[in-house]
């Protein structure tokens, strides 16, 4: 039976965006089930995010994205409705088994194509290229069960005394950051999970 690795992700986090392609490739190389866990952005759940942190994050992500060969910019910061609508549609995508496609497409749309996912036009662009029915996506945005899942994800993260994303959890061990995937892989190798 494959080992479970939880992947806490936020559409408002540029670091989550640059982590996603490598995260979703992990099950290709390791005997794991990568479980996507949508996470409400820190700033939308009352956590401190200073202006200096925001400035640094954009510059640092640009340098890291360049090193990874990923596009970064043009951006449309989705904080607020844009991030929340993506999180809710991602829950639908998870139920349909297409969360990888949706997360990759939506995060690229936000952080490299300046798609405004707070608008129907923007969100529809994303759902269409993943093959999610638009009416189902609109229903997902209003689905209280999906919202409850997101709140449960945040509660679980905070229950582990953790705060940020992207975060990976393997056997209760936390690996926070797009640049900590290498440490997760070290641990998975120690556990004999290499395919």
């Amino acid at each position, binding site marked *: 039976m494959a080992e479970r690795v939880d992947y806490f992700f936020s559409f408002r986090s540029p670091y989550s965006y640059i982590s996603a392609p490598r995260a979703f490739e992990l099950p290709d190389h390791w005997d794991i089930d990568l479980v996507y866990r949508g996470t409400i952005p820190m700033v939308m759940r*009352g*956590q*401190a*995010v*200073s202006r*200096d*942190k925001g*400035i*640094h994050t*954009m*510059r*640092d992500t*640009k*340098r*890291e994205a*360049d*090193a990874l060969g990923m596009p*970064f*910019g*043009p*951006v*449309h*910061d*989705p*904080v607020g409705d844009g991030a929340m609508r993506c999180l809710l549609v991602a829950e639908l995508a998870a139920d349909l088994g297409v969360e990888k496609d949706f997360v990759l497409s939506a995060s690229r749309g936000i952080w490299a194509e*300046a798609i*405004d996912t707070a608008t129907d036009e923007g969100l529809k662009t994303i759902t269409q290229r993943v093959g999610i029915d638009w009416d189902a996506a609109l229903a997902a945005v209003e689905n209280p069960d999906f919202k409850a899942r997101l709140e449960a994800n945040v509660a679980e993260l905070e229950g582990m*005394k*953790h*705060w940020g994303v992207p975060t990976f959890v393997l056997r209760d*061990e*936390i690996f*926070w*950051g797009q*640049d*900590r995937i*290498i*440490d997760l892989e*070290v641990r998975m190798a120690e556990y004999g999970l290499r395919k």
Partner: protein
Amino acid sequence: MAGLKDTLTRRVGPRLLIASAGVKPTHRLAAKRVRNSGGHEQVELFFAFDDPLSTVALLDLSGRVAGRAVDLVALPVVERGMAGDPAVQWKRDYAVLDATRLAARLGIAFSRKETVSPQVVRYLADWVSAREPHSTLTDFSVAAAKAIWVEGVDPADQAHFVHLWDEIVGGTPPGPGSGRVEANQKLMKKRGPYDVPAAWVRGQWFFAHERGERISQTLDELGWGA
């Protein structure tokens, strides 16, 4: 009006910030001037002795600048982090685990598993900041941080660190209250870093425990190759 504000904060602001990342021609020109005058580049490292991630940065960066005409300048601070951050203790606890794994990447085994109070090691920051930056102060900072986090020396054991100071810097450490820790904290805040370890390299800053490669790359781009 709301639409304009939205566009500025969500699109234009990020665009300008992204454009400002990385080494620019003006940085290269300034570095060239320093080089032509026989000077050295500086990597200024804001760090804290109670922070295990700072220890990773000190150990990593001291190796990275070796062989380059680059000085690693140790600027200790005590107060750090974002004001009002409710996750401060969680972050400090997690930093021990994270630093242990990062040190392992460098082939170094951390022995300390518990956090250290900033006030317990305040005296070390005072000592290092009391004098003008010098390579021996950087060497002392590396050795002291290593003693605390790798060798497991009790940070409250001042006698151990007095001896270390004499070995590396020479003489007795400066007296209490003579340091300029607050000046370092003020400079760090002015430049943008809100936590440590933060390395300042000609107008850009990096979280130094996890951006060693990027710092090396920046030095290379500035013409300070090994």
